[in-house]
Structure formats: C-alpha cells, structure tokens
C-alpha cells in the first residue's frame, strides 16, 4: 500500500539526532509491549511477520507519524489480541477476564525464553523454484500500486537495476501478509544507481541495493 511508512526519499522529516548512551527501552512499558508481542507470537494462531508489518502500515498516516515506535507496537498488539480471539473487547474494557472464560497456559515460560530468542524462524524455503533472473542481468522493477502490503518501495518502481546476487528462495510477503499463501520465489539483491532513482543531481558513485522478489521484476 502507498502508505506513509514507505518514506524512502521523502524530504522534510528533520535532523536525525542520535541519542548518546541510548537505553534499549526508554520506559518500562516499551519493554513490556515488546516482550508481550514476542511471547504472543510464539503462541501461534493466525499471524505472521508480514501481516504484523501490514498491521502497522494500516495505522492512519497522521497517527503513524505522531506515534513513537513502541506506541505503534501497542496499537498493533491491542488489535491483534482481539483479532486472534484470545482477548475480547469486553475484557479490554473491564481489564479483567470474562467470568466464564477459561484460563490458558502460557506458551512460553521464563526457562524457555533463551531458546525462543535463539530460535531461527527463517523465511527461506527449500522449495524447488527456478529463478527468473540471473546475476548480472538488467531488470526493471514493476510499476505497481497494490493497496495491500508490499515490500516494493515507491521510489524503486519503474526503475532499472542489475541483479547483484540471488539470495535463494523466500516467502513472498505480499501474499503471506494477507494469509493467501507463502508463494515462495527467488529473492535478489538488485543494484540501482542513485542517478536512476533520483536523477542527475545524485552522485555517480552512489548505489542503492534493494532486496526484490521475482514477482517485483521484469526484464529490462
């Protein structure tokens, strides 16, 4: 979707302003929101990382820009626990479990946390899918404007680049985010000149590399 999250190349966002000796979490609630989200992800259900990103993108644009990072996570978390059917809106209102509700067993105990954190959940798939392109080949990113989740930024659409490397076969986020299947396909690093993306005022020695799936590309 052409959301405000897709901000590569935008102007007017201000200075970067790094913070010295920045803490991992600035307030206790940030760590709790992060941890709750991680633990509930381990609990399964109808969720995946692509859909989780999509849920953030669906926040109204003004809210997205005003919210801090973990405020967005909290908004998503509240939405997801209701969508997963593990908490009802009535329970969120009262702050207490519904009287007739059953008590679940947490999927992850403290002892299981190191293994959960170290678990590999790669999006790489061993599916025997042929690559449509090979390293060195010229390609053009498709000019498409899906209204749903995509990882093809606007700034690269319609632009020409060169396949830099073939990462192998990976889950396709555009379908996975909508629970329409993993549609595994080759993922490439595609190299664009800064001048192709931004025009002649860009440095001739600047290059931008994006990871792009077969379905994002045509032969140039």
């Amino acid at each position: 979707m052409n959301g405000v999250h897709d901000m590569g190349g935008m102007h007017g966002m201000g200075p970067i302003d790094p913070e010295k000796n920045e803490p991992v979490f600035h307030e206790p609630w940030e760590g709790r929101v992060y941890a709750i989200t991680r633990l509930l992800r381990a609990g399964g259900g109808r969720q995946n990382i692509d859909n989780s990103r999509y849920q953030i993108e669906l926040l109204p644009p003004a809210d997205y820009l005003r919210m801090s990072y973990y405020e967005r996570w909290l908004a998503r978390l509240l939405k997801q626990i209701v969508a997963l059917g593990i908490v009802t809106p009535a329970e969120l209102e009262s702050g207490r479990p519904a009287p007739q509700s059953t008590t679940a067993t947490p999927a992850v105990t403290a002892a299981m946390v190191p293994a959960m954190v170290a678990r590999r959940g790669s999006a790489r798939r061993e599916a025997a899918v042929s690559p449509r392109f090979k390293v060195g080949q010229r390609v053009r990113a498709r000019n498409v404007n899906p209204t749903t989740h995509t990882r093809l930024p606007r700034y690269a659409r319609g632009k020409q680049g060169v396949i830099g490397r073939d990462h192998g076969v990976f889950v396709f986020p555009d379908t996975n985010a909508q629970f329409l299947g993993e549609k595994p396909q080759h993922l490439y690093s595609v190299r664009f000149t800064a001048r192709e993306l931004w025009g002649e005022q860009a440095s001739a020695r600047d290059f931008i590399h994006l990871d792009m799936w077969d379905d994002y590309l045509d032969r140039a």
Partner: protein
Amino acid sequence: MTSSDDPVGRRDFLKNAAAAAAGMAAESQVGHAHDSHDHDHEHGHEHDHQAVPSDLNLRVKALESLLVDKGLVDRAALDAVVDMYETKIGPRNGARVVARAWVDPAYKKRLLTDASAAIAELGYVGGQGEDMVALENGPKVHNLVVCTLCSCYPWPILGLPPVWYKSAPYRSRAVIDPRGVLREFGVELANDVEVRVWDSTAEVRYLVLPERPAGTEHMTEEQLAAIVTRDSMVGVGKVSLSEARP
C-alpha cells in the same frame, strides 16, 4: 475527556488508534484507562525523541495483568525477554564478529561468503538474524544499512535498533542523501568513495564489516572488539582508536 484541541494530542492519538484498532468501546479500561490520572502528566515528561505520556506505563500494566490473568503470558517470561535484550543481546555480539574477522583471515572469508554460518559459529543466532549478509567497508567503498519501510535490523547481532534508526529522518534520507546522512554522523567521505546503501526490504539482514583502523596491529581480539561501535556496523560510523577504553 480531553477536548479534541488538546495541545498535547499524542495521548489521544494513541487512545483513538488503539481503541479503533481493537474495536474497543470508548471507555475501555486497558485501551485508555486512568483518564483521570493522566491529566496530571500530559504536560511533562517529554523525551527528546518521543513525547511519551507516562500513563502508558499504567495502561500497559493493565494490559499485562489481563494477559497474565488469562494465562496468555507468563510474567517471569516477560521479565526474561526484557532482560535478554537489555543485558545480553546487543552490539557487543557484532563487535566480536568484527574483531574475529579482523584477526582471522579465514574467518573473514567465511563471513563474507556465508555470513549466517560464520556468525552462528560465535553463537549469535535467532529471530531477525537468520539470513545474514556481511558487507566489507574499505578505502574506496562505504556500505550503509537502512530499512526505509519499517525497522529491519539484525537483532541477534546488534540487539534492538536505536530510535534514530527507526525514525522518519534516517529512513527517508539514507537512500536519497547518504553522504549528507553520513556527514550528520561525522563521517565525511571523499568524492571517489563509492557509497552502497542497503535498504532491508526483505528478511535478509545486513552487517557492515568496518575498516580496521591503523595503529591497531598489536591489539588483541578482545581489545579490538572493545573499539567496534554499533554505528560502524550499521555503516553510519567508522571505527577509531579514540573509542578504546583504558
């Protein structure tokens, strides 16, 4: 209730977004409880980067209690996750990878050809670090990593990303003005240096292998690891000897 022209505004944005998102009624206990309380706070406690209303701590506590009461999360497990990222998983992991690559040419070769396996040799594995690519900086090539679409970052190797990495200024500018961004971080590149920006648009995560500074020839791997900064492994900084601690 606060009026819609509340000069602070952020609390209402969260409240409204969260309430809308969860399909909650306007008076939700967890979604925006403590309305009477947070009037005390809404004009203070603004952090440099993000104005955070302190009632969020209360609101999230209420949410946590509900989830614990329902048996959906274990409180000790939450503590363990927070502790893991506050004290165990952070840029020191990546610094050890870099130091090893600097002292061990065979390791460096493995890192540049199969970063996932080479990093796993040192035990740094897990979510958001499964499929790694290492990018070598040199006198004529400078690599810089960004995620314009969200906040993709190699958690097991660098920990959770800093606020600036996840924020609009860096995400918007890194791809269109990388040299200007680097200048803001104090890195001035000569015109003949090639800049390669890596936009993390997929599940591949990138680690920059910074240049080993001159004058470090006699340092041990341990001493080298101590001077490798997080910024140098994202590509917004260079490693310098002045980072060395006595």
